[in-house]
């Protein structure tokens, strides 16, 4: 069940990392200027937020777990099963970022999870 362990790390660390990055982006503020110099300045600003570094660390862990899983299974299996992060993402966004998740979105998340189950069952 090595694949399952890698999947848990990809989903857990990946979602945690994205939530941290999202929190950091809200601290930096909305981008209005898309010129290269402004974008570089934006990246430097983002790098001064602690949440960004925690997010990057977690996403790095998720990345190497993804590489490990890709060395075992096909990409058409690995990437769709990581959609399990929908459930983790919706829960995390609601609990940590205090975003309001509508019933319609929860229904979508539930259907996505059903799809992930079908993809997992398609495994040899």
């Amino acid at each position: 069940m090595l694949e399952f362990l890698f999947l848990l790390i990809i989903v857990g660390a990946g979602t945690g990392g994205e939530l941290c990055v999202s929190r950091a982006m809200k601290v930096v503020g909305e981008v209005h200027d898309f010129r290269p110099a402004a974008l570089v300045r934006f990246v430097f600003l983002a790098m001064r937020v602690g949440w960004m570094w925690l997010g990057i660390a977690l996403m790095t862990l998720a990345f190497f777990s993804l590489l490990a899983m890709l060395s075992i299974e096909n990409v058409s299996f690995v990437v769709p099963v990581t959609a399990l992060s929908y459930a983790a993402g919706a829960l995390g966004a609601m609990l940590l970022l205090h975003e309001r998740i509508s019933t319609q979105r929860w229904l979508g998340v539930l259907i996505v999870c059903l799809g992930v189950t079908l993809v997992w069952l398609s495994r040899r």
Partner: protein
Amino acid sequence: MKDSPGLHLKTNILILFIVLFAPLGNVLLSKGMKRIGSAKNWVPGDIFHILLKIVTSGYIWLGIACLLIFFVAYMLVLTWADYSYVQPASSFSYAAVALLGYFLLGEPVPPMRWMGILVICLGVFIVGNTHPRTTGKA
């Protein structure tokens, strides 16, 4: 920021970048890892040997470049759209990665996997027609 067609256009263009570059990056990583192979026993020596192969693989670096483009687009869009909107919208890439895996890498994709991916897309359509901001006043 006020709700405007410009906000939706800006959001959709960056989501297009996300949908294109994330699957391409993953396919390149997959190609690289299939060439490198998996660790036999997952002992530190084995893992170190594989890490060395990873950092010298052209496919891996190309994949990382694509994922960096994806990541920058993702960071930008998150400055105005909420995470719980961006994540579902960007998940069209799950279908794109299966198509690329099938056509570019020649991976066998069983019918049940296609069905699962279609169900994932259905979930995406349900959550996709909502406003980018979820934390505003009702």
